[in-house]
Structures are given as C-alpha cells and as structure tokens.
C-alpha cells in the first residue's frame, strides 16, 4: 500500500473548496458581521466600520460595538415572523402542488418506450434555455386581466368576467410550480426509471392489481426521488424573491420580498443581513435532514 500524500487529489479537491471559501464563506461572514452592526446615515450605511490600521486594540474596540439588537428586533416585530411563516406555507403548498403535477409527468416519462425518453427529457430541460426572469415575466402576459388566459376563456364563452389571478398568491403558486417543476421531475424520473420492471410483474403474479402494485411497489420505491425533488423545490421556493415580486400582490408576504424591502427600501443593511442569516439558519434544518435521507439511501443501496 502506498500511503504517501496524493498531491494531485489534494489540488483537485481544493479547487471547489477555495471557490466556496472565497465566494460563499467570506461573503457570508461579511453579512453576519453586518447583521451585528447598527444602521447609520453614512457610506456604507452602518456602524461600526472596521479599521485594521489601528492594530489589535481597535479590533477589540470594534468587536465590543457589535450586538444582537437586529435579531431581537426580528422577534419583536411580527412582520418578520409572519413573513417567515408565510414563506414556509407558500413553499410547502407549492412543493405539494409541484409534486402533484410532477409525479404523473415523471411516471409517464419512465413508462414511455425507451426511444421516446430522451426527447421527453429534453422537453423538460428546454425551458432552461430561456432566462428565468423572462419566463416569469411572460406569465404576467398570460395571467393579467386582459391576458392570454382570460381572453381565451372569454372568447370561448367559459367566463364572462376576467379571472383575478395576477397579483395574488395563486399567481405565485403558478409561478413556483412552473419554474421549479424540472427540479422535481428530473430526480424523480431517475428514480422511477431505475425500478426493475420484473418487480411489477412479480407483484401482478402474486395477485396485485395494477393500482395495488403502484401503491405497494412503485410509490414506496420512488420515495427517495420524491424527497430529493421536493427539497429541490422547497428550499429555493422558501427564499424566492422574483416570483412573488413579479406575480404576487401586496397580500403576498414572503421573506425574500421583506429582505429586499429592508435592503433597498429602508436602506437598513444590518436588519436585512439579520433576516438573511436567520433565513439561512432556518433552511439549514431541512437541508441537514435531506442529507441524512441521502446518506441512508446510499447505505441501503450499497
């Protein structure tokens, strides 16, 4: 056995780590630092600022001025708690709706003759070729009062009054389900496609009707894909800003929007930073849970 240090492997692994260090961890530390500061009418708009030219004593002086005031404010003003809860609710409901749309889609794809599957997969990925922002924007054209949807339905005589969807939470749900559908379909399809067809034959052979076989074999075996897909929808939906901003109305309360308001509207960078840090901590819980699931899954497969 060769136990000498493998420099090639070290450098290969260190590249993504250095990348994450410079572009994720360092900015995050700056945000944490900012969240412990106080708002000020200055440039940058917070105090204290760190001046390292004065040496060790000034660093200690600086650290003394930091406090958790912004975090306690998050708890005091119910706007923030409500935003978090509302985001949680919207993320949960849209994840469920995406699952409702995505599961039959992924299932259908996995059941298609093999030669059709690459084309169908392509069609799921195709929307990514257009900018996310433009795709959400175009939903305005569909959903607004005199938009595509309403004019079509009225021309068909199905409705007399235009439906009010634009600037409601319903529009936000539509936007999230549409935007994040591929993130759910792809891992779910990968799981469903791997299920050995002979298992379903065995189930039928033992007397299970197709419906029973689905609920006893296919669905439980697809759960890892369901969980993976659901988290890939839930986590970004939780902090979503663009969709509620463009499609939602004033009633739609989401933490991403609140954060944006604090940052650009109120120019309260420290409070906005505190909101961001709190959001991240809240998301760490489901992310850790997700990783545990994946590890368990890998153990089961080995």
């Amino acid at each position: 056995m060769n136990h000498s240090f493998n420099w090639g492997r070290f450098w290969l692994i260190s590249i993504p780590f250095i990348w994450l260090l410079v572009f994720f961890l360092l900015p995050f530390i700056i945000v944490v630092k900012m969240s412990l500061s106080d708002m000020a009418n200055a440039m940058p708009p917070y105090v204290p600022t760190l001046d390292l030219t004065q040496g060790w004593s000034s660093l200690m002086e600086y650290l003394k001025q930091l406090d958790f005031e912004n975090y306690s404010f998050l708890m005091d003003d119910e706007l923030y708690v409500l935003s978090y809860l509302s985001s949680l609710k919207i993320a949960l409901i849209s994840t469920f709706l995406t699952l409702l749309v995505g599961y039959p889609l992924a299932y259908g794809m996995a059941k298609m003759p093999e030669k059709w599957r690459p084309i169908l997969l392509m069609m799921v990925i195709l929307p990514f070729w257009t900018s996310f922002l433009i795709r959400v924007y175009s939903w305005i054209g569909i959903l607004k009062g005199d938009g595509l949807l309403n004019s079509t339905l009225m021309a068909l005589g199905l409705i007399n009054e235009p439906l009010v969807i634009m600037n409601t939470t319903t529009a936000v749900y539509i936007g999230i389900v549409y935007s994040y559908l591929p993130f759910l379909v792809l891992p779910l399809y990968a799981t469903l496609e791997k299920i050995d067809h002979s298992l379903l034959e065995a189930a039928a052979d033992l007397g299970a009707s197709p419906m029973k076989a689905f609920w006893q074999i296919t669905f439980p075996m697809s759960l890892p894909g369901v969980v993976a897909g659901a988290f890939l929808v839930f986590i970004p939906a939780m902090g979503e800003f663009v969709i509620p901003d463009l499609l939602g109305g004033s009633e739609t309360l989401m933490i991403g929007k609140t954060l944006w308001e604090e940052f650009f509207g109120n120019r309260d960078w420290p409070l906005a930073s505190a909101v961001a840090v709190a959001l991240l901590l809240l998301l760490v819980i489901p992310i850790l849970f997700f990783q545990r699931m994946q590890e368990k899954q890998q153990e089961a497969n080995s």
Partner: protein
Amino acid sequence: MADTPTSEPRKVFAPWLDPNQKPLVRFENVTKKYGDYTAVDNLTIDIFEREFFALLGPSGCGKTTLLRMLAGFEQPTSGRILMNGEDISKIPPNKRPINMMFQSYALFPHMTVAQNIGFGLKQEGKSKAEIDKRVDEMLKLVQLEPFAKRKPHQLSGGQRQRVALARSLAKSPKLLLLDEPLGALDKKLREKTQFELMSLQENLGLTFMIVTHDQEEAMTVSSRIAVMDKGIMVQVDTPAEIYEAPNSRYVADFIGDVNFMEVEVLRHEGAQIIVKSATLNEFKLETDSDLKDGEKVWLAIRPEKFIVSKEKPSDDQNMVQGKVWDIAYSGDTSTYHVRLEDGTTLKAQMANRRRVRNRDITWEDPVWVAWSYRAAVPLRN
C-alpha cells in the same frame, strides 16, 4: 452424465401415456411473434398435474416466452392456452392460479423477508393472523426463520433464492413456474437445491414447470424434458429417453456429449443391420428403428458407451483402432480423445475405477475402441 437419471426407482408416473388423463395445461397451436421474429412456432403440448416439466434449450429458443405466456405477461399471437380445459389467454396475470419464481428473484427491496413472502396472501385480503401463520410455515420450509426481519440486500444469493421460492409457494399455486431458478447459485448449492425442489414438488403434490439451459439440471429434476430450438419442441420425453434415444442430431448434441459417425446401411442380417462408414470399417447395429438398405444415417454414440483398451477386444462387438491423442482427466472419469485412421477423433469416457498411476493407457498409445451393437443410435437428419 454417466448415470442414467432417476426415473427408475420411483413408481412409474407417466400420465402423458394415459389417454384418459386430462391435462392441467394445454398449449394449443400457440404462436408468438415479435414483429418478424417467431419466438414460439405453432406449439401444441399437454402438461399434467404433478409433473415436473422442464423446458430446455439455448437462449432465444422460446422457452422463457412460453413461460411468460403461461404467467400472463405475454399474449400468444395465435392459438390458445387452456388450464383445466378453460382458455386463460384473456385472464390478467394477477387473476391466474399460477405463480412464478423469477430468474432475477424480483424480491421487493423495500420489504422484509416476511413481507415479501406474505405479499401474495395480503393481496387476497387474508387476515394478519392467517398471513403470519402461513409466512411462518414458509420460513420453516426454506429454513429462513432467523431472517424474517431482514431486507433482501442483507441476504446471500442462496438465501434470496429461498425467499423467492417461499414467496412463489406461499399461495399454494396449482402451477409453479420456475425461470432459471438456480442460475445464480454455485454448483454445490445448485445440486443441493435441485434435490430440495424435487422433494418439495413431490411432497406438496404440485406441478412445476422449469425453464433452464442447464441440461444436467433438467435431467436431474424433471419428469419430462422438452428440448426446444427456434420456437419448436424438438423432442418431449423422459430424461432417460431423451438421453438414450434422442430423435435428432440436435437433441443428441444438446444433451450430454456425443460422437457422430455418418454411415450407409448395407444390408439386414436377421436382427442385425450392417452399416459402412465411408472411411472406416463395416459395423453391426441392433436397433428398433426401421432402416432401409442404401439409406444414409448418422450413428450417435455416447462417450461412456465406448471401451478403450490396448488389447484387442472380443469379437462380439464393433471396434476401431486409433491412437490416444489427448486425455482429459476429471477425477471420477477420464475422457480419451482417440485419433482414428481416417483422421477423425472419437471421444471415449471411462470411469476411473483404479488409481491413475496404475492405469496403463497414455498419450500416443495405439488402442482399440469398442462398442456394443446396441450402443449406437441411428439418426436421420
């Protein structure tokens, strides 16, 4: 392969010879086509209750297709499949009183051993107590009681195979289909399991249909073997008949080792027929098949029917002279490859009754190869 298989010591069981017997399963002019490819070609066969029926053939001969049609996973392109006289072609697989043990075992990976075995009973809506009782019985039958709570991936290959068997037997099917059930096991375990399958089938009084490409396995377990080729059954008979009286070169060649010799029938002399090989001597032949003078046939002779000796054998048998070209020693037997005067090679197998160092035949030795008048089977093409 030297021993004649096991049909002798049992009581004679041959319902296929009794015209009054009703078959359990009847394939009636069944054809299955995939596009231009004919997997099963106008096949008619009866399978009787308590039979252990083997479908034997190379891959692509249609044996698995036949089994899958019986299970209901494939529909015949034409023809009917009858069970107890009733056409089952339209009955979906989940409504047929037939269970199958899959080649891949197809165990449900997310269920425990006990849940796997109880799956079929659960579908019937049996109560939990009933299911548990039957599952316990099955676990005992396949000796897997300590493993009831394990998942399939925590079992060895042999244990998985037992779970698959227990699961397919749990509903006491009228007919059990086994698709290459022992393919994944090593030789020792395979032989052990073959005998277990046989005693299980006999004790439970079930009908088994097994698909295999392993001729030894088919010989060991089955009451009848159907040798298949390109979608047809070339010969359907007991293992002993298939081995001793193959009806074609294909069957003779597929089951065990065989030497072929092309000869012309010269004349009949009482019970004996005199034949002549183009390049060798005249031989005598005693056979039940009815050969005409002048006809060209193939003689099929099993290697173990030959006797190899250095001394000239007695006159009441056929013999040729040759040189030992190669010896394949396999412990219990040795196979001598004897090069004859005309350049052809015969394979002769002799039991090693004595220790190797005491045996006197070795490479390059001139030897006689002898066989009795009844040893050769004449085959038309």
